[in-house]
């Protein structure tokens, strides 16, 4: 029975849509699953590198999930972790090479953090938790969904830090000169690394106030 019903299941059934949307809020990889904070926050001082990083992570999680899910029945369990690492590392190298060839100045800003996508726990975590046991299409969606959830936080942090830290968005000045004339100053503090952590802390606070089921037990 399962073969017949599964074939009929539409590509964007309610279940599959959930795979895509759940990680964006209720099961967000950063604020709820606590995965993949490492390589991310250092690139959020400006919106543009944060955006490029976000796209790179979506590409890597999606394709890593897809590839591992296609291979899942042939991977010998004993070398599972190594196979996963090799797939991830190869994808990351491809992304890095493409960035260097086509958007050179952004790749210089990201420097080593592209390489760190390899040890980004989101990718590994989703491979272990999802792709190893699911079909390719749901795995691809799960990868994209988790990548999006991660991107959302990254872009929020990047937006706040660039707006208050430099008075610009995407490099364009948005805070009018008249504000500065009235005594408004860019908050140089926002640009320093520790503020990224504090902003994520506040995002978690807001999210958990709105979704009380996420609050941790004492």
């Amino acid at each position: 029975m399962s073969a017949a019903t599964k074939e009929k299941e539409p590509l964007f059934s309610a279940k599959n849509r959930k795979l895509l949307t759940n990680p964006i809020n209720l099961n967000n990889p950063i604020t709820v699953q606590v995965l993949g904070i490492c390589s991310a926050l250092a690139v959020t001082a400006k919106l543009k590198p944060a955006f490029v990083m976000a796209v790179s992570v979506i590409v890597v999680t999606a394709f890593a999930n897809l590839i591992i899910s296609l291979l899942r029945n042939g991977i010998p369990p004993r070398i599972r972790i190594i196979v996963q690492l090799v797939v991830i590392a190869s994808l990351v190298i491809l992304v890095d090479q493409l960035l260097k060839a086509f958007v050179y100045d952004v790749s210089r800003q990201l420097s080593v953090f592209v390489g760190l996508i390899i040890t980004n726990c989101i990718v590994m975590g989703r491979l272990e938790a999802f792709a190893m046991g699911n079909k390719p299409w749901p795995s691809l969606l799960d990868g994209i969904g988790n990548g999006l959830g991660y991107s959302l936080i990254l872009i929020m942090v990047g937006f706040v830090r660039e707006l208050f830290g430099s008075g610009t968005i995407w490099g364009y000045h948005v805070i009018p000169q008249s504000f500065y004339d009235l005594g408004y100053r860019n908050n140089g503090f926002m640009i320093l690394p520790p503020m990224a952590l504090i902003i994520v802390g506040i995002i978690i606070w807001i999210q958990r106030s709105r979704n009380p089921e996420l609050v941790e037990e004492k």
Partner: protein
Amino acid sequence: MYSNAYIFRYAGIMVILVAAVLSAAAMLLKPMQERNEAVDKMTSILKAAGFEDVNAKNAIDLFNSTITNMIVINQDGEVVDDFTGAGKEKSKAFGLNLKEQLYNKSMKRPFELPIFKANKNGETIYIIPMRGVGLWGPVWGNIALRDDFNTVIGVTFDHKSETPGLGAEITTPIFTDQFPGKTLFDDNGKFVSIKVVKGGAANLDASMRNHAVDAISGGTITSNGVSDMIRNVLESYEPYIKKIG
């Protein structure tokens, strides 16, 4: 369960496949990446020399038509290599690793440094690439000098990871526009470099005012790094300048 033979076969095929894909990608994209790097370097050199309208498209042509000599000198100021042909990005001077050479200098070992001679509207100018350390990582740049090897025409700076809004401001015109017209040597021909001074260059003695620019407020360590970089790099050219002058 999977047999050992299967595991080895699996691993072997995977390694070959991955290696093939990655090498192919690296080989295909390599020319573009190298071009990007060369263009970036050339743009910075040309900007220092005062070519404002240089961009990624015309950088290579403009570089090859304006730069006449790609010279390499050694620690005693002797010319080791003088490249004048076409395809300047292949010259020894262009490929020299500044960081390695400056490290050799700090260890009191022999070193070689590049200097680019250019022809801008009939005037001969010299451009010297620089490299040093800021707050978080390396800072680098280029300085263009008149043929008296004394007066600055222009500078560019760049950095890896200085604090945006503070130290990173060294790349902006607010900082770099202070340099043109400053001089490296005092009236007696002694090398004094150009200092980045906190609290304003205007408050200095008249004799020093020509050898100093204002630091970036809030970017003290980066400013000091730039100051040290200019002195450290340019003093290595003193023997060469003495020889030529």
